[in-house]
């Protein structure tokens, strides 16, 4: 669950990116955050990941109160959130397997569990034959699927996808969002930031529209998508 109560966020250079934003994303929701460049979409992600501190207001993410969280607890917060970025952000010198297993190593998972869980997650995103490949050897769509598998592997309560379709072909975009929908149907909350209206219209769901740092629309929209 993500809850923003009257949150204002200001960057160190003095730019206010969010103004008095209040919204609540319940467990199991699939929400699109829609807005043009500079509207404040990515700021919400930075706040959720504790990359940026709110200047005002209260933020609760998966039970962590980010206004009072200790620095030492930030890694624990981030372990409850899986993140998928527009630029994939895979570690180039690690294979697909190692990029995904890395998340489990961070949480000190047992080698036995890693050996069992990683191939399973790789199979979920359909990359069984690319296990030993390096990110540089994969297409954009394949890299994004690895990023998705990495976000999924430690079974997070929330997955944040920051413009996950921005660097891939349009037809692959639908595939990636389809995968996110499937993940959501298994109970994981998904928050996807995008500016692609076609995708939103196709898949439907909760739409939160942000303009100039304020929420201007927050409602459910039916889509043409069928699983």
């Amino acid at each position, binding site marked *: 669950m993500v809850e923003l109560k009257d949150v204002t966020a200001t960057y160190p250079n003095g730019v206010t990116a969010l103004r008095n934003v209040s919204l609540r994303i319940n467990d199991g929701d699939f929400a699109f955050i829609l807005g043009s460049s500079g509207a404040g979409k990515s700021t919400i992600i930075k706040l959720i990941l*504790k990359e940026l501190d709110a200047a005002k207001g209260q933020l609760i993410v998966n039970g962590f109160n980010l206004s009072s969280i200790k*620095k030492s607890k930030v890694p*624990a917060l*981030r372990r409850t959130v899986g993140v998928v970025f527009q630029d994939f952000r895979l570690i180039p*010198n690690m294979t697909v397997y190692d990029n995904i297993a890395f*998340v489990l190593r*961070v949480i000190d998972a047992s*080698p036995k569990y890693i050996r069992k869980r990683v191939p399973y997650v790789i199979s979920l995103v359909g990359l069984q034959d690319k296990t030993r490949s390096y990110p540089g050897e994969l297409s954009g769509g394949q890299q994004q699927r690895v990023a998705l598998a990495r976000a999924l592997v430690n079974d997070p309560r929330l997955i944040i996808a920051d413009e996950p379709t921005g660097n891939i072909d349009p037809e692959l975009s639908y595939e990636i969002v389809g995968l996110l929908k499937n993940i959501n149907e298994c109970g994981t909350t998904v928050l996807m930031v995008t500016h692609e209206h076609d995708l939103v219209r196709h898949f439907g769901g909760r739409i939160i529209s942000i303009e100039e740092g304020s929420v201007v629309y927050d409602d459910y929209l039916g889509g043409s998508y069928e699983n």
Partner: protein
Amino acid sequence: MRLSSLQYLSAQGFGNIRHNKLMSFASFCIILVSLLLVGFSLLFYVNVSSMIRNVENKNEVIAFLNEDVTDETIDEIKGHLDSNNNVLESVFYSKEEAFADLKMEMSADYPTVFDALDSNPLPHAFKIKIDNIQLLTDTVKEIEMYYGVFSVRAPYEFADALIGLSRVMTVVSVSIIIALVVVCMVIVSNTTKASVFSRRKEINIMRYVGATNAFIRIPFFIEGLVIGVISGLVASAATWIAYDSFVRILVEEEEVLSIIGLTSLIDFSTIAAPVVSAYLLVGAFLGSAGSVLSMGKHLKA
């Protein structure tokens, strides 16, 4: 943390050296050059100090005794000299020996100069070697106070020149070494910062997936440590070879050797253990601490 995690992080540290060959090689070269610059400066200083000390030991103070000095007094003076902390060596030089030496020295040019003498006019004396020439004046004053000592002749000018040279050498060497240490630290710090900066995305990814700062630091620490230790080993070998070759060249130059003295040159095998240990420790410290400290701003929560 599980043992398997530690093994994984260690393997990551070693793997990073291979994956980041260029930056690893740059760090290795910078640490190696830094170690060699400071190491050679220190060895130069140690050897020059040894040479000055060797020249210092060639000093000779002569204490002339009273004409009527008795054997008991001579023994007493010898006892005082032996117990003096700043006297390295003292040898009794009898008036007979002195006269014989004088005759031998002058007989070639002035064969009849001693014919008119009825008796030996020279006094008994002690030839004394001073340990620390910087304390020459005080030691001479002490010797002058011994009962039975008539006067003391000391090489004050020689001592002043040596003390001056020694001070200049110390100031110059220490300044150069400090300057080198500072320059090397700045260069090492910048190189490791560049190395870490080139991998800031990787560090960021680790943070996003919830890695603790310690988890992120360990591979960098191991990587820096290994590069530092390798630099230390190579620096030790290079210093050993270069130093031995230099000493061999000097030994062949008889003129140079007659000035500095063979014993002034310190044999590398006698200082190999501390030199190699220092290279390894400093290399390991520069490599590991450099890497870990350079990560600071990339690890903010």
